[in-house]
């Protein structure tokens, strides 16, 4: 890897990276803190009436959604979070070839004694490093949020357990008082690692696809347009598949089916033995479905295939003169 190319690539991406890193860290912290504003019974009162009509859009069971890990896991499907990762992937991926060609700087770079592979993979390396750091910022924001947020538990009467037995009684004369506890007592931040990895894999796929379209185009705006269009279509397919049984087949044509951070949290919390399984044996009483490992491998596979195809195209194409 050429040091000058690495420095240039970092310099090209530093402002986008810094702004997204700050955004992801503060938003994730804020989003977790927000959880403390709505006590669980109130949250359940909001969600339960809607469940009958909109429950099919939730990838996890109601019980899990009404738990603190379930509520914190919603952070990963906040548009601001996953779109930040998607934006990083598209912005950096599209810049790889068509970005340099659009600006006319590819000519000066390729006139130097550096191979096309070096030029492409230096950019890819910085993109992936940035992606890992952004996902870490997201997890770290959640971690700080969980560690610093306190929640109020609903008032319950004090209990007494008969020594030497498992019999516990609620004391009728005791005063029922709400209890303030740290969110960390309810949420283990290690359970947020699998969804963070799932988010990372989504970013890898988007960066790979954007690099693929960038590698054969000469206009960056067109590469961005194409990959954004693909992402929107994939989103529509995912939503369509969940809307009605007639459109359920759409889940097989969208790679976003493999982006399910909420399921990954549910598996981590409720079925830890299946955390890195290829296929889920049982989740929420149902069998089947992609295991966390399969989901991530699908996303990584698409990204890797895109990068390999992009390399093949870029190493063989003509580099047009700047317009």
């Amino acid at each position: 890897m050429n040091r000058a190319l690495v420095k240039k690539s970092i310099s090209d991406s530093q402002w986008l990276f810094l702004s997204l890193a700050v955004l992801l860290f503060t938003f994730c912290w804020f989003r977790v803190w927000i959880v403390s504003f709505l006590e669980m019974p109130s949250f359940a009162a909001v969600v339960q009436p809607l469940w009958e009509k909109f429950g099919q859009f939730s990838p996890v069971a109601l019980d899990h959604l009404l738990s603190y890990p379930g509520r914190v896991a919603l952070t990963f499907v906040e548009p601001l979070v996953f779109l930040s990762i998607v934006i990083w992937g598209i912005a950096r991926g599209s810049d790889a070839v068509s970005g340099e060609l659009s600006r006319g700087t590819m000519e000066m770079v390729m006139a130097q004694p550096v191979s096309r592979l070096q030029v492409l993979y230096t950019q890819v390396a910085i993109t992936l490093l940035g992606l890992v750091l952004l996902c870490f910022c997201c997890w770290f924001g959640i971690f700080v949020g969980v560690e610093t947020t306190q929640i109020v538990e609903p008032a319950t009467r004090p209990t007494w357990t008969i020594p030497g037995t498992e019999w516990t009684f609620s004391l009728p004369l005791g005063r029922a008082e709400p209890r303030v506890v740290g969110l960390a007592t309810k949420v283990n931040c290690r359970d947020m690692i699998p969804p963070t990895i799932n988010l990372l894999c989504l970013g890898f796929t988007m960066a790979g696809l954007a690099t693929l379209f960038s590698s054969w185009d000469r206009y960056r705006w067109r590469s961005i347009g194409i990959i954004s269009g693909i992402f929107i279509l994939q989103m529509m397919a995912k939503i369509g598949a969940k809307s009605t049984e007639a459109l359920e087949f759409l889940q097989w044509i969208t790679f976003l089916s493999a982006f399910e951070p909420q399921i990954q949290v549910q598996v981590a919390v409720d079925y830890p033995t299946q955390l890195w399984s290829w296929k889920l044996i049982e989740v929420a009483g149902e069998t089947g479905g992609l295991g966390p490992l399969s989901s991530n491998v699908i996303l990584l596979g698409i990204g890797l295939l895109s990068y390999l195809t992009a390399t093949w195209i870029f190493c063989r194409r003509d580099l047009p003169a700047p317009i």
Partner: protein
Amino acid sequence: MLVETDSLSKRYGAFVALQSCSFSISAGEVFGLLGPNGAGKTTLLRLLLGFLRPSSGSAQIGGWDCQRQSLAVRKLVAYLPGDVRLFRSMRGTDVLQFFSEVRRGGSYGKAAAIAEELKLDISVRVSRMSTGMRQKLALAAAFAADTPLLILDEPTANLDPSVRKTVLRLVEDARKHGRTILFSSHVLAEAEEVCDRVGIMRHGELVHMQDILELRRGHRIGARLTGPFPDPPGALRSQLALQLDNDRLTVETYSPLGPILDWLAGLPLEEIRVEPIGLRSLYERFHSAESLPT
């Protein structure tokens, strides 16, 4: 030979950008490529750098194939593009630093000294530089690279006359240091001044190669004929290119003028004019006056 092409061609569908171009440049030579816009000069240079894949034919620099061994080729070449685009977010100093670091043996100090010679303030951000300033910055980066071959695509475009002179001097200096220079230009006077040889391109074809020393020996004699025109003597016949248009006689020759003038003195001629042939008139033979560069 440092540069060698063999029937090099580039087509885009039906459009032929370069047609069967074969030529060679020896080490230490300054070679100029001349031709109007669209003649194929830049396509030829981009093929040599491996930016484009040839449709047919091949090119070699320093024995390396320009297509298959492009990396080895680019180790031997410093390049100035015709349309200089640099990294807009960087300052001039950063750009020179980048080019000196990206190439093994690059020298920032040398590049900065050339920039100073070109009267360029390298502390300015590229986005605030004028076209001429960016051209100077790219020139500094190209000349500072320690490579045996310099490829310059219209190096003096966008520059004021005094800086043009400096650039031509840099070309001369590079030649003195044994570097080979291949440059395309629209300015015939500059090409005539610094080149050892020129190639004239038209519609993607290299239509003429000219040794500049030989060109300097060439003269054109124009006169009005007032009587019958006899055939030239046998000894001179092969040295002359004659053209008779009504009473206007034009004689072109690359031979010593003495014997020719002696012969012409005995002919019925008036209004005799003797002038060096020059690159301009050579160029005019292949390109109409409308496409003639200044």
